[in-house]
């Protein structure tokens, strides 16, 4: 066995050396090849995973991150947007003649064309070049498509937009556009221009926000222009309190409701005051017995447009000016955003030469002047929306009760694309009143109930035609020919001409209502609750060359009670308008400079009317040192909301506390509430005992006193009014990093300079109607929508200081070469 074991050892040695050789071969021949593949595949996999991670949106702890590889790429990502991405070889297909575009030192385009279509092609092109993201975002918002961009957070907003009929309204308007060959040509040319710019884009030249949010622009269409109009109509007519008022009526009873929510209070100064009886009568409509439906529980109410959306405008005749020529002024108060709502430009083709402010998405100039005339707008608020309570036959919601029969419901299936998620499908029920906004799918528990909306913004509007005609107008006659086309949103259209004429028309598609109609929710089953027609444009309130030498408007009541039609608006302005009229009455020998100063007027009639009474009532109370100091500063205050003062902050806080204390008894956790407005509150305090409108309160003096002490304790020692108010220009995406906050400015929503936190004059214009006219313009923002451009907010310092750009109409030839920042010369391609 011993020798055997030696043999075994030999065998084992032999065996191991064989194994070694075998393994060696394996490594170099077979295993070697596998390793190579593994290494290659591993490297490829890591490269692929990195690429996938960097070119797809990520979600880190609920925060959406755009594709970082694209966004951060130094050669093509956001870095490229740190400068103005100006096309080196601009091209617009379809041009018939040569187009010259001079951009001046403020990046304002001056477009010179040989015909209308070329002009609007070029306008579409430059507006897209400067503001593409904004123009698309606004129309996406109107169409309820924000979830496509930012995800499910916007779904309720989007559903609300479509349920309230934004798309329906835009479709109706598009239908009307198509029937007007001249307007259709202008709109289609504009779209072609926008699309010429869009198709020239590469990822590198895409606007910053597309890179940040990780999506791409789609082609522009005239439908988007209709959506833009819908967006503006919603901004300006999208506020009503019908649902709230219906609950308040039930809670308070008619007498108390009328006390708290009067249609008029003494001392109002309507836009068009009656100077004697009107020369027409309104057709009588019988008032139904029940003017309101029973309130209905809605668990999810849509947000309404900002009730502060409004404006100032006025014009004075030559009798009141130093030059003997009229001067017109306009400033429109809207949400202060970046990019600014407005963009400025000059447009010219033979027979058409106009300069002013326009929307990003529609042809022509909205507010501005030409060689002979100037015009501007303020919102003419009136109740434009009514809610109809709908009773469905059963849970299927196929029919609803109307005029003692069951009428069929149209079901419109709407799909909502959502970023990063599956699409959502909603059904919108449509009745002959309009779309059912609230139903079992949205805010209502009872499947047999619904609330339909009827709104003038569901109907087509020809305002583009109206202002394109203002653009071309030569005088008063042209102005009045264009006015009937001004439908929705209704506006006070101010006008002045070099011939010396002034005019103001309360223009729009106004509902002819029976007295009280639509103040509360209406009954959708009753024919007598339906709209009975519209007020004929000949019956619109207007003023032409009035004796007082001026016309003005500031969203107050359009007319007084003498006007033959019933007027109702839940949101009238009470203070700015009276300040304007007071100043215009006093002023003589006016120069444009005086009006520029008047735009910056921070005087508040609200403070003038409320503060003396408040100070008087707490005169005798014992005060500590700080309270005495605050009291003293308030007694010395002259009611000007200047940024550097503290008194306006004290007054605002004090008034807020009083208002809360007076109306806290109306608070209701279960049902919607409307609160009386400030002017009514002041009026009631002055004329009625407190117990009549605020039960359970001890006395007025005590209420003022505790509100005063509370104010003193909460008022900051180191803030003045400007800091306290903190005006901001908020980027449309709501990202603070792209916004400008804490802008130090005076003003108040009750002053002509209507500045509040995120709201205020979104442009200012003064036009002197000399021959040719001269204008002064400014707005809080800049011509470029690119946050990386020097033109993003370069006009803000001027706006803040109350200075203006002085502008005149220029021709292609007489353009001062020193003012030219950039010129595009576009020629037709064979």
């Amino acid at each position, binding site marked *: 066995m011993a020798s055997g074991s030696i043999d075994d050892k030999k065998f084992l040695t032999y065996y191991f050396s064989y194994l070694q050789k075998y393994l060696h071969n394996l490594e170099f021949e077979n295993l070697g090849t596998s390793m*190579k*593949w593994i*290494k*290659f595949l591993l*490297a*490829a996999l*890591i*490269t692929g995973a*990195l*690429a996938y991670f*960097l*070119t797809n949106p990520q979600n880190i702890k609920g925060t959406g991150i755009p*594709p*970082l*590889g*694209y*966004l*951060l*790429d*130094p*050669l*093509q*990502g*956001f*870095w490229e*947007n*740190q*400068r103005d991405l100006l096309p080196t070889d601009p091209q617009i297909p379809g041009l018939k003649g040569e187009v010259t575009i001079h951009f001046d030192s403020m990046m304002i385009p001056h477009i010179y064309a040989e015909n209308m279509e070329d002009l609007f092609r070029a306008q579409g092109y430059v507006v897209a070049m400067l503001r593409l993201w904004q123009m698309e975002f606004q129309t996406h918002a109107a169409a309820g498509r924000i979830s496509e961009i930012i995800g499910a957070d916007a779904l309720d907003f989007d559903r609300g937009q479509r349920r309230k009929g934004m798309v329906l309204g835009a479709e109706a308007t598009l239908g009307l556009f198509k029937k007007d060959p001249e307007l259709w040509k202008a709109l289609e040319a504009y779209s072609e221009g926008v699309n010429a710019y869009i198709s020239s884009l*590469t*990822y*590198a030249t895409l606007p*910053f926000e597309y890179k*940040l949010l990780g999506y791409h622009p789609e082609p522009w269409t005239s439908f988007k222009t209709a959506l833009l109009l819908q967006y503006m109509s919603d901004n300006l007519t999208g506020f009503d309190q019908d649902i709230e008022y219906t609950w308040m009526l039930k809670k308070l009873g008619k007498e108390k409701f009328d006390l708290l929510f009067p249609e008029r209070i003494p001392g109002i100064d309507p836009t068009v005051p009656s100077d004697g009886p009107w020369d027409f009568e309104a057709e009588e409509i019988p008032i139904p017995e029940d003017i309101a439906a029973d309130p209905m529980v809605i668990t999810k109410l849509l947000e309404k447009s900002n009730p502060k959306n409004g404006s100032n405008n006025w014009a004075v005749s030559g009798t009141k000016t130093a030059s003997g020529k009229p001067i017109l002024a306009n400033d429109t108060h809207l949400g202060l955003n970046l990019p600014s709502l407005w963009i400025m430009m000059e447009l010219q083709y033979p027979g058409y030469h106009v300069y002013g402010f326009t929307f990003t998405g529609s042809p022509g100039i909205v507010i501005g002047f030409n060689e002979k005339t100037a015009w501007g707008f303020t919102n003419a608020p009136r109740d434009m929306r009514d809610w109809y309570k709908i009773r469905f036959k059963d849970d299927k919601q196929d029919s609803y009760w109307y005029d003692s029969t069951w009428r069929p419901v149209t079901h419109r299936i709407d799909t909502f694309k959502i970023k990063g998620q599956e699409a959502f499908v909603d059904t919108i029920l449509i009745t002959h009143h309009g779309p059912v906004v609230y139903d079992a799918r949205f805010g209502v528990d009872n499947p047999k109930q619904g609330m339909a909306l009827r709104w003038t913004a569901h109907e087509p509007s020809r305002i583009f035609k109206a202002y394109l005609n203002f653009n071309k107008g030569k005088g008063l006659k042209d102005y009045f020919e264009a006015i009937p086309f001004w439908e929705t949103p209704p506006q006070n259209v101010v006008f002045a001409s070099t011939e010396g004429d002034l005019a103001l028309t309360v223009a729009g598609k106004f509902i002819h209502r029976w007295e009280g109609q639509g103040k509360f929710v209406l009954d959708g089953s009753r024919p007598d609750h339906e709209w009975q027609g519209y007020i004929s444009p000949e019956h619109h309130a207007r003023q032409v060359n009035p004796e007082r030498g001026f016309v003005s408007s500031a969203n107050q009541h359009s007319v007084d009670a003498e006007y033959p039609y019933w007027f109702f608006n839940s949101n009238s302005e009470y203070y700015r308008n009276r300040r304007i009229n007071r100043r215009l009455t006093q002023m003589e020998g006016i120069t444009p400079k005086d009006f520029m100063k008047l735009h910056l007027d921070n005087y508040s009639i609200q403070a003038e009317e409320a503060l003396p009474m408040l100070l008087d009532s707490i005169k005798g109370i014992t005060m500590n040192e700080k309270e005495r100091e605050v009291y003293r500063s308030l007694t010395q205050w002259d009611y000007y909301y200047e940024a550097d003062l503290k008194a306006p902050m004290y007054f605002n806080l004090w008034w807020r506390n009083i208002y809360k204390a007076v109306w806290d008894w109306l608070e209701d956790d279960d049902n919607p509430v409307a609160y009386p407005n400030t002017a009514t509150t002041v009026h009631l305090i002055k004329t009625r005992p407190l117990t009549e409108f605020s039960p359970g309160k001890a006395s007025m003096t005590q209420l003022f006193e505790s509100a005063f002490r509370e104010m003193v304790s909460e008022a900051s020692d180191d803030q003045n009014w400007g800091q306290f108010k903190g005006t901001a220009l908020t980027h449309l995406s709501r*990202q*603070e*990093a*792209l916004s400008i906050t804490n802008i130090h400015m005076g003003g108040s929503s009750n002053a002509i300079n209507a500045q509040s936190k995120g709201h205020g004059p979104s442009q200012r214009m003064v036009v002197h109607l000399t021959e040719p006219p001269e204008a002064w313009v400014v707005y809080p923002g800049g011509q470029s929508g690119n*946050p*990386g451009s020097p033109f993003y907010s370069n006009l803000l310092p001027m706006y803040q200081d109350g200075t203006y750009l002085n502008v005149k109409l220029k021709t292609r030839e007489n353009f001062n070469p020193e003012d030219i920042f950039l010129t595009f010369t576009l020629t037709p391609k064979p």
Partner: protein
Amino acid sequence: MKYLGKIVLILVLTYVGHLISGPFWYLIPAGFIGGLLIITSPRAAFFCGFFAVSVLYFGTAFQSHISYDGVLTDRVSALFMGLNPLLIVLIATMLGALTAGFAALTGTYFRELFIPPLTKRQRNYY
């Protein structure tokens, strides 16, 4: 010299890729081709790709940040939880550099599937 050649080649390919193609993706063919054509060890290939794109990206991003006074880098950094803008420059550089590095590595391994790698001696000789 060889490394320098490789770096320059990847750098040039990256830039050309950027000029003729869409965003970001151009890094991958640039790195891959660079890794494939000039023979180095896999490790060197990775670093050449990484270095080439680092130089290009850092140079471009930093120059852009400085010459436009950080007008957007400041805003983007505020959006990214308030990171320092220079960190955004570095992150952008790193993301591109890593991608190009791995693409170059992949290119080299791809080559080695068909052509045996040179021995250390041979590599030094080249």
